[in-house]
């Protein structure tokens, strides 16, 4: 899908920054907490991400590249709206299907069936919409015999499979993928990748975090290179990978 100037912008990140405390044990006091987001950075804090500005158009497939702890997952979480920036704005104009911590929404004590309806419902699907997709979700997860099993009795592979099946069926225009697919056997991983390709082909926008160069080249056209919490390079994926390899000599 070609991205022209005419393609609608689905997301703008403007000067976004977020800081975290370095040690979780540090004492908090009321003054700190209520100081709001204008206050200056304190000694025990660091910026996980700062001065990041991105514009994303519908249908783009973006790979996020960087070493561990350079802010990749933080960027994804900001886009997913599960954390809020301390500086700047993150404006996401369309729905997001986050494949981040995907099993997080599932409740141990409820059956697989109830969990599917609950998770899809929390992401804004009506019961009728889930009904229409239910069989396909179960087929995809290859989990048909366990519909009424409490979620906690599933194997960890099954848990991820059912979670992926649900989230990837949310029909949201933006998909975020954060290395979740490292779990699960090879056959299922390939199945997930094919699903992502299908979604891309139907015009979805993709945000993909991975350390696997082959996967990045397979899905993405544009790359973002994050280093020390800053956006170092925003360019076609080949260029970004070349720079990353040059600096950190993986390859």
């Amino acid at each position: 899908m070609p991205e022209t100037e005419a393609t609608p912008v689905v997301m703008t990140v403007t000067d976004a920054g977020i800081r975290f405390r370095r040690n979780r044990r540090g004492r908090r006091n009321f003054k700190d907490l209520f100081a709001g987001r204008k206050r200056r950075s304190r000694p025990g804090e660091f910026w996980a991400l700062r001065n990041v500005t991105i514009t994303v158009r519908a249908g783009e497939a973006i790979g996020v590249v960087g070493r561990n702890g350079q802010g990749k997952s933080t960027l994804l979480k900001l886009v997913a709206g599960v954390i809020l920036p301390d500086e700047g704005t993150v404006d996401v104009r369309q729905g997001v299907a986050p494949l981040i911590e995907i099993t997080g929404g599932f409740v141990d004590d409820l059956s697989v069936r109830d969990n599917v309806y609950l998770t899809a419902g929390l992401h804004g699907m009506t019961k009728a919409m889930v009904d229409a997709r239910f069989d396909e979700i179960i087929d995809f997860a290859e989990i048909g015999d366990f519909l009424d099993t409490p979620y906690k009795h599933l194997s960890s592979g099954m848990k991820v499979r059912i979670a992926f099946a649900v989230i990837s069926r949310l029909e949201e225009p933006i998909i975020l993928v954060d290395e979740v697919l490292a779990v699960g056997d090879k056959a299922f991983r390939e199945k997930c990748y094919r699903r992502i390709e299908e979604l891309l082909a139907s015009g979805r926008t993709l945000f993909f975090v991975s350390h696997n160069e082959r996967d990045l080249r397979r899905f993405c056209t544009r790359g973002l290179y994050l280093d020390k919490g800053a956006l170092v390079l925003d360019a076609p994926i080949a260029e970004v990978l070349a720079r990353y390899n040059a600096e950190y000599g993986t390859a």
Partner: protein
Amino acid sequence: MSSIAEERPHWSPFARYRHALWLLTRRDLRVRYSTSALGYIWSVLDPLVMSGIYWFVFTQVFQRPLGSDPYIVFLLSALLPWMWFNGAVSDSTRAFLREAKLIRSTKIPRTIWVNRLVLSKGIEFLASMPVLALFVVFSPGSAINGDLVLFPLAILMQTVLTVGIGLIVAPLVVFFRDLERATKLVLRFLFYASPIIYGTSNLPEELHFWAAFNPLTGIFSLYRAGFFPGELDWFAVGVSAVMSVLILAVGLLVFRRLERSVLKEI
């Protein structure tokens, strides 16, 4: 493979909020009732046993004239709402901690994590109303009057108050874990400081004015008005209404201020 992205319904923010709130509330109730055999019985049994104890202690042992007759109706009409208040506030201390995984992976308005507790406990409260009705019907000497229409007003005020307190407690506990135990302690104190086992009229005269500043005083007097006309105290109700709205406003403010930090912390 079709591009069905357009098929998604267009939710108004309010409809979306209601939808998510209802889903989570139903989940709460379903988990509670699917994991215990007695389910509903438990939510009624607890206040019943408590009432039985108080009834025995205060009418059979001490024979001290407290509240009004029939005492069991008098007790239940405040004890059942108290169970709702107590349950929702003490659960709100774990509102974020218990659901951390879900909160980290779903983007829904964060006040839902508190409101769903108030709602699910509220539904349990409504489900326990038949018990109160039974005692009203079968206790000799009990009567109802037109003030029973004030019952919904009491429910509304209690909702406002409980949501307000939940919005203050839930985010603060994330940073100050001690608050969890402190809340439990305050709740225990509040049980005796509120007119539940006694009526406001049992208090010494000079305390009447100050008792009104416990917002629960006015609320419980509304609940009781339908059975015991003498319990209705409009001054207490007025103070309680103002306090409840004030607490809700503070709650919203605190919550908005802390939301950002809470999301980082959990």
